[in-house]
């Protein structure tokens, strides 16, 4: 492997991380919104959120990204591969984050929420001061776990020609006819990224646990 090969790995790592990062940034608040719609059982919208989550959750990353990239131009919406990848990953992240938020909301101790009601807190104050701080903490491990899943799904973006880590490895292998070394380098890079995320998750879990034991 030469200098350009290593450069392409760096480039691949950047796009892998970048796309996942954007998806998380978009997915966290949107996911929370959907989760609240479902949690509060908002009539029509709650059902829509359910269908959205169910559909997206079952659609493979490769299929979704091909749909967005190749399919949308039919409606005169023409996206660059990078934008298509970001949108497709954000769609997925939103659906998964919705489930994470929702399970945090569902396992939220109802009596505490009622206490907030009984103490005269209106809807917004209940959400802002009682619900969100706790749900946020109990969601962090799930959200980070979701980030690792996004990172691991990032090879899907190579289908539309974006240079991610896997694609970089594959190109080098195709040129040198030695597929294993570049694949192992790619492996190592993923392990580093995911390990860092898992470290972060463990770190946060410990902090949360010490700050908040169940009542």
């Amino acid at each position, binding site marked *: 492997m030469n200098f350009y090969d290593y450069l392409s790995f760096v480039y691949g790592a950047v796009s892998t991380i970048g796309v996942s990062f954007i998806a998380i940034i978009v997915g966290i608040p949107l996911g929370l919104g959907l989760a609240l719609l479902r949690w509060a059982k908002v009539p029509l919208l709650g059902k829509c959120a359910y269908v959205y989550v169910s559909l997206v959750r*079952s659609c*493979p990353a490769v299929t979704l990204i*091909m749909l967005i990239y190749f399919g949308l131009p039919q409606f005169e919406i023409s996206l660059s591969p990078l934008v298509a990848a970001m949108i497709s990953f954000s769609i997925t992240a939103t659906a998964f984050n919705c489930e994470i938020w929702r399970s945090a909301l569902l396992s939220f101790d109802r009596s505490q929420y009622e206490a907030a009601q009984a103490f005269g807190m209106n809807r917004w104050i209940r959400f802002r001061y009682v619900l969100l701080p706790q749900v946020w903490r109990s969601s962090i491990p799930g959200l980070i776990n979701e980030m690792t899943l996004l990172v*691991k799904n990032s090879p899907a973006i190579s289908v539309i020609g974006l240079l991610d880590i896997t694609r970089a490895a594959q190109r080098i292998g195709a040129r040198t006819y030695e597929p294993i070394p570049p694949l192992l380098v790619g492996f190592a890079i*993923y*392990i580093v990224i*995911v390990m860092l995320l*898992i470290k972060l998750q463990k770190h946060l879990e410990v902090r949360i646990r010490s700050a908040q034991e169940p009542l």
Partner: protein
Amino acid sequence: MNLSDFQIIYDERDSVITGIQTTLSLVLVSGLASVLFGLILTPLFFSKVGWVRGSIEWLCSAMRCSPFLLFVYVIYFGLPSYGINFDKYTSGLVAMIVYHSAYMAIIFRSAWVDIPAEILEAGTAYGFRGATLIRRIIGPLLLMRAIPMVGNQWIQIVKDSAYLGIISVFDITAAFNSIQSIYFNPFVCFIVAGLLYWVFCLLIELIVNLVARYARERIA
């Protein structure tokens, strides 16, 4: 998008059906096999022998860290260097089973840890031990408690199967990709593919919900 696009898909139904069959068989076989191997691996987490515990944990974190596609490449293109040369379907299947067994083992381990200690202790106090304890008390509770997570993992299996198109396994995504690259109707193709995957996952959810309802009042 218009009717003729659907007509094209209908005309190409042979390859669509082949794709569905491939995905279905991949998902069925690897879904069941990974539960089985997962169950076999789980007690190793609790082994008293350090290196056994160490290696199962190492295996599981390796799987948790590696993207499925990369893992598939290693199995498909890497193993032949060591004289192991599976065809593409077998490679895909082996990759799916190994990868997801590790996940299943992780799922079962956390279900095991979550069983209230008192219930297991009651087993010990009443003279249950070893294989009888696992078979009569831990096993059933473990399975029933893990059902929802196992369902999620099955859905993940369905989704990961789509990557196998990249090593030329002719699954649903590959079938529709092949159609759209000949007839240039990508939108319809991938929408239909997405819906097919949805149906797969709805079926899984249905089954899981039925079992979960049975399990709910039996898991403490």
